[in-house]
């Protein structure tokens, strides 16, 4: 019997401390910045839901999208004539290391891999995030309004990722996306076996990777059972029952088995992804997204059928053996089946600044292979699909009434090397304006550098 089935039998009133601890710890203190009601008119709008509207309007009010297309406009709104310009949802990067591998990339800032043990699901990336990373400002200028910062891939279980609003704050809590679930970064393939194999430790092989994963899941199952037994004793009136010892590692893994934490699995090869999917079935959890997946095109139908996203690069390949079969049509081929969830991710402080161009490359590679992909479809790769993979698609990732007003006005068609994000709104607040230096944030690190140099 799979563990999910056991969990389903638990009485609903039993609340495991697992979830209580997660819900309360290190809570988000983010609140939207002040905004004016803003009407964008005469724009070409890509909604992120597959639609393209011409000469259309969009109203932001109270931090939310009031309407897209046409609707009632209250008096006194700020109006932006976006003739000739394009409007999209704020871009979302499902795979970033901003904050945990910040600029400058000095050793003292190397906070993304707790490469001391192959299984560290107890660590949380947010506890490494440096909110002064200058990379956040560069990403904002590229239209990024939300991102997931993940631990690195040295470990089988790398730790929890955190989803952030791309706003400057003195604390990461001030950036933390309200209500977003945690992600768990897992890594298969070369990295863990290289890091630990070089130290003559498990894992040194791919089969060692899988054995080590499975052992951890078995422990997590026991952890859930122990807590369930304890809760049952309490429910039976045995008030002197001793609770099991809290375990940060197993709390995270139990959170995955309970469906509260989303699995972001770094994996390159098609055969390894298939193994991971079987392992998820064995232990009754779901893989939310494969990341990097340079061979995802080989199993595009399986990913779509199992509703697993592929968070991928447009053209990276060859930097290691498991990246040798990368092709430029990977994203387009993963996008092809019904029910697919293709995502363009960056994994890079440079790439996150031009996710739109990465999507443009992937789209045109696909079109040259005869796949006929339109901008209104491809925009989902960098908006609604990553939102889905982060569990924030109810709040953002598309331009629909009632959603967060995370919006970008582009100088033109964003699927171009020449397009620039002119204005970027986060929850309706204008946080970046290319024409107004006052609305271009500068991190503490960069302030006052290079004195005497005239820019």
């Amino acid at each position, binding site marked *: 019997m799979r563990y999910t089935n056991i969990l389903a039998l638990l009485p609903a009133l039993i609340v495991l401390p697992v979830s209580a601890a997660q819900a309360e710890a290190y809570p988000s203190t983010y609140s939207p910045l002040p905004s004016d009601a803003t009407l964008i008119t005469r724009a070409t709008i890509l909604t992120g839901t597959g639609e393209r509207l011409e000469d259309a309007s969009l109203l932001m009010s109270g931090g939310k999208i009031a309407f897209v297309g046409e609707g009632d406009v209250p008096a006194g709104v700020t109006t932006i004539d976006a003739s000739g310009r394009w409007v999209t949802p704020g871009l979302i990067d499902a795979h970033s290391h901003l904050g945990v591998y910040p*600029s*400058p*990339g*000095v050793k003292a800032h190397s906070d993304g891999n707790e490469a001391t043990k192959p299984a560290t699901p107890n660590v949380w990336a947010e506890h490494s995030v440096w909110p002064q990373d*200058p*990379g956040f400002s*560069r990403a904002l200028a590229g239209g990024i309004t939300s991102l997931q910062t993940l631990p690195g891939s040295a470990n089988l279980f790398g730790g929890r990722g955190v989803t952030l609003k791309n706003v400057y704050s003195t604390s990461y809590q001030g950036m933390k996306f309200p209500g977003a679930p945690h992600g768990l970064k897992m890594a298969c393939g*070369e990295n863990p076996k290289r890091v630990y194999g070089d130290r003559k430790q498990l894992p040194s092989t791919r089969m060692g990777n899988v054995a080590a994963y499975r052992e951890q899941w078995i422990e997590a199952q026991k952890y859930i059972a122990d807590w369930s037994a304890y809760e049952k004793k309490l429910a039976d009136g045995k008030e002197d029952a001793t609770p099991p010892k809290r375990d940060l590692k197993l709390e995270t893994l139990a959170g995955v088995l309970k469906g509260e934490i989303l699995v972001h699995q770094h994996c390159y090869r098609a055969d390894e992804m298939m193994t991971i999917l079987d392992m998820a079935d064995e232990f009754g959890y779901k893989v939310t997204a494969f990341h990097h997946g340079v061979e995802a*095109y*080989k199993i595009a*139908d399986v990913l779509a059928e199992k509703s697993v996203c592929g968070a991928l690069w447009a*053209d*990276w*390949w*060859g*930097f*290691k*053996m498991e*990246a*040798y*079969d*990368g*092709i*430029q*049509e990977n994203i387009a*081929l993963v996008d092809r089946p019904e029910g697919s969830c293709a995502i363009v991710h960056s994994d890079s*402080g*440079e790439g996150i*600044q*031009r996710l739109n*161009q990465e999507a*443009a*490359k992937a*789209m*045109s590679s696909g079109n*040259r*292979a*005869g796949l006929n992909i339109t901008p209104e479809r491809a925009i989902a790769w960098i908006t609604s699909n990553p939102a889905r993979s982060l569990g924030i698609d109810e709040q953002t990732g598309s331009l629909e009434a009632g959603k967060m007003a995370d919006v970008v006005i582009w100088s033109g068609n964003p*699927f*171009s*090397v*020449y397009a*620039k994000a002119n204005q970027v709104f986060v929850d309706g607040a204008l946080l970046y304006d290319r024409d107004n230096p006052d609305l271009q944030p500068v991190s503490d*690190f*960069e302030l006052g*550098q*290079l004195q005497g*140099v005239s*820019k």
Partner: protein
Amino acid sequence: MNTLKTIFIATLAAFSIAAQAQTIMIRGATVHTMDEEGTLENTDVFISDGKIQKIGKNLAVPADIYVFNAEGKPLTPGFFAGVSSIGITEVSAVEESYDGGLALDEIRPEFNVVPAYNPHSSLVPVTRIEGFSFTLLGADPKGSIFGGQGRMVALDGGYESFFGGAVLFINVGRDASSLSGKSRAGQWMLLNQAMNEADNPPVSTESALLTRAGRGTLSVFTDSGKVVFDVDRASDILETLRFANKYGLDAVILGGAEAWMVAEQLASANVPVLLNPLVNLPGNFDSLGSRLDNAAILEAAGVTVAISGAGSHNARKQRQMAGTAVSYGMPHAAGIASLTSNPARIFGVEDQQGSIRRNMPANVVLWNGDPLEVTSAAEVVIINGKLIPMESRQTKLRDRYLSENPEMPRAYIKP
């Protein structure tokens, strides 16, 4: 494209890799000559015996040759893939497939990567079908601040496709600190000592930095040959200019994140810059001044700028990098030049690559749109007069997996 092209493209797969130069006519292109003639509308280019024979309007078409009707599309010189290890590496992390640096803990400027070049590397087709006809094989500093030497190679797949003179690579600044006693001042100490040894061999070999061959190499470069200094910080760039001037070295700056801060000095010293226009993060303390309009500022100041930095596997990204430089203020023609005529002139190979001129080796690319646009692609690639099959290991993998639900395992699909 008309049907003629379709027919001929279909036959290209049959060519052997040692294809001979063909007779080819490209009709009605917008020809970016990157030479004195500028851009020529609706112009024909006739290629035979590996060379550009004629450029003109309504040229006569001999029988039985390859004809491409460009219909006004851009024809440019083949693009420069930057300083790379194409043909020197296969998989970066597979150590035994990488030969781009000498990891001996000695100063060996005589090291030269050229004998390691493998024209059958999968990177050669992957790169050239994206419109790239040449690259500069670099030598990475692994054991000392002298990386060693490299050379230009045309990506036509030949064993002997090298051209131009040897180029010496030296690293200074942050990256080289660990190779010079953990001080960048130590780099200049070592570099000065090495140059002095080249002129005045030490009496005792025990304290010598260089081998006899190394001294010979450095002596050569004080007379002729380009010396590429990989350096980012403005103050280090100025020190490089002083050093090069002192020893009569013909310097080229590689990287140059803060080059814009010393644009005037670079222009007056006539020292060109190979740069990556995407660098705009303060990734380290040598590049606090990095910015997206670095290329535009340098070009406006009269510095010759070329693009480098996309690496080996993804060298095709050089186009996007030049497009970004244009997006941030560089004139479009200068953007094309940064991938063609500028790198050719910087390394003294303008008679081989970088422009479309009569009697030059035919290195041309026909594009389906703006060559600097991310949605554009190369349609026809000709390197040293050879029509390049638009195939690579990657296109074959694509074609193997493009068909849905094949009956037999895909191992039986062999595009």
